[in-house]
């Protein structure tokens, strides 16, 4: 039976303390940075469901994020649809895109780097499409008019936006927890560990992987919606560019793939480092990406189960209230 270690209590406690402090004592300096990190964290949680638990590493999760952002933007701006309704439609659309990509890839038995390449290709195709048509704003992107108000899903106050984004992160992590404790989650892990054995034991691996990707699509789409409602602007490079796809997988891999906390831990750490580097060495564009690469290599070399894995090994283990089976 796995328990929560001292190191984990400290790590998760520290993160909760930081996030809650920001909720009760908003600081403009920290809010901007944290909102951005949390939106990426939602996408990372999405990636982690399929990549961390199911072992199917997508290199194109921007496709899902971008679909969420673009669909909600287009519906509002082009057809005047209520932003809340547009958000629901966007999440449905991202789920459908995810289902389509997964069904196509997994039907043909694509695994490993082949699956990664196909997802990357889908994101690229969407990026080109988005920048080619007038209805999606072409090369200019889409600007959503600023009209603050609950009915418009826009908030004048940054700390309200922060609360909303934080709420979404919590929901996404609770979904992960539910998956981890379910048969569906056990099946995903089985597929990650050995797909042939999974099949022999009665697991419909195709269906399981497609469902995981669709769930990932729904959450990734929600991240796109959150991005749009926060910045009121989207264009093709932001939505479908490889930066977003890379950020989606960096968080979980650095934080700990296939864990509930990994994506949030990893995303906060990597964004914190990136921000620090930006302040220390100003005027070096792309420096944060270099830094991400270095951190990733160090983690892969010395901490294959990420920061969460490290925390698990620190200090005496204390019994969790209910001894639940865990991932890894």
């Amino acid at each position, binding site marked *: 039976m796995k328990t929560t270690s001292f190191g984990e209590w400290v790590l998760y406690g520290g993160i909760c303390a930081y996030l809650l402090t920001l909720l009760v004592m908003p600081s403009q300096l920290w809010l901007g940075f944290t909102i951005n990190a949390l939106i990426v964290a939602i996408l990372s949680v999405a990636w982690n469901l399929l990549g961390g638990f199911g072992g199917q590493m997508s290199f194109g999760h921007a496709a899902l994020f971008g679909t969420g952002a673009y669909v909600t933007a287009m519906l509002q701006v082009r057809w005047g649809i209520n932003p809340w309704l547009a958000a629901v439609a966007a999440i449905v659309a991202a789920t459908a895109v995810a289902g389509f990509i997964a069904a196509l890839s997994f039907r043909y038995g694509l695994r490993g780097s082949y699956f990664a390449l196909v997802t990357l290709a889908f994101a690229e195709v969407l990026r080109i499409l988005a920048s080619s048509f007038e209805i999606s704003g072409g090369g200019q992107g889409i600007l959503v008019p600023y009209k603050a108000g609950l009915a418009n899903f826009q908030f004048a106050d940054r700390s309200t936006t922060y609360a909303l984004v934080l709420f979404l992160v919590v929901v996404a992590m609770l979904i992960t927890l539910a998956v981890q404790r379910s*048969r569906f989650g*056990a099946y995903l892990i089985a597929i990650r560990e050995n797909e042939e054995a999974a099949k022999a*034991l009665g697991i419909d*691996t195709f269906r399981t992987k497609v469902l995981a990707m669709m769930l990932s699509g729904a959450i990734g789409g929600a991240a796109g919606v959150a991005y749009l409602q926060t910045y009121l602007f989207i264009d093709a490079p932001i939505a479908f560019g490889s930066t977003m796809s890379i950020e989606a997988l960096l968080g979980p891999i650095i934080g700990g793939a296939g864990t509930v906390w990994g994506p949030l831990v990893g995303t906060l750490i990597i964004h914190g480092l990136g921000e620090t580097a930006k302040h220390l060495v100003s005027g070096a564009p792309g420096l944060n990406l270099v830094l991400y690469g270095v951190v990733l290599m160090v983690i892969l070399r010395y901490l294959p189960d990420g920061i969460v894995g490290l925390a698990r090994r620190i200090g005496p283990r204390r019994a969790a209230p209910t001894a639940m089976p865990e991932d890894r």
Partner: protein
Amino acid sequence: MLSVSNVTKRFGGLVAVSDASLKVDQGRIVALIGPNGAGKTTLFAIIGGFVTPDSGRIQFEGRDITGMPPHAICRLGLTRTFQIVQPFAGLTVRENIAIGAHLRHRGRAEALERAAIVGEQVGMGPLLDQPAQSLTVAGRKRLELARALATEAKLLLLDEVMAGLIPSEITEIVATIRKIRDSGVTILLIEHVMQAVMSLSEEAYVLNQGRMIAHGTPAQLVADPTVIEAYLGHGAAERLKQESDNA
């Protein structure tokens, strides 16, 4: 219960299984023997739905399962193990077996409970919380058996679960397999350890170069000249006979 009729499978120019047929009756332990490369594992893969045959039919409990995917066949109650063991390396023994148990038990706690019971049944009780990757060869073979058993299969296909084991471990696993049969599970097993085949099964098939060359009781088969030749080469039966005559 299981009937394989005239199954053929080619890999490029190589005919791995050629017009092979066999039958397994409910409640029995049937052995499939034959030299290395005879096509035994391929035949198991075909029965389990991992490989589609070029021709021939597989029936399980009167239903045609030819071409069905492995998970669907497993749900009907037919599960195979792998000669090259395929553990979920990062999981514990208990979690490994629980994956099999999930087939009939949705709840996580329930599946883990079932896993412990099945683990005890195959003598893995003390190893339940060990990571699968820390197991010895014997442990991994047992784990294959336990996971398959946990699916509550009616027919188990066991592919060389005794290969690489020392005699005392073989004695243990033979007893385990007999216990499983006595609990109502039918077994078809591939085995090289003839002593185990002799003591376990009432009936055996011999596959050689993809063809089913003999069928009978193990005692009949070891005396069968065609079978001896398959194992020891052309003319071997004649030589053996002469040697024993001269002695």
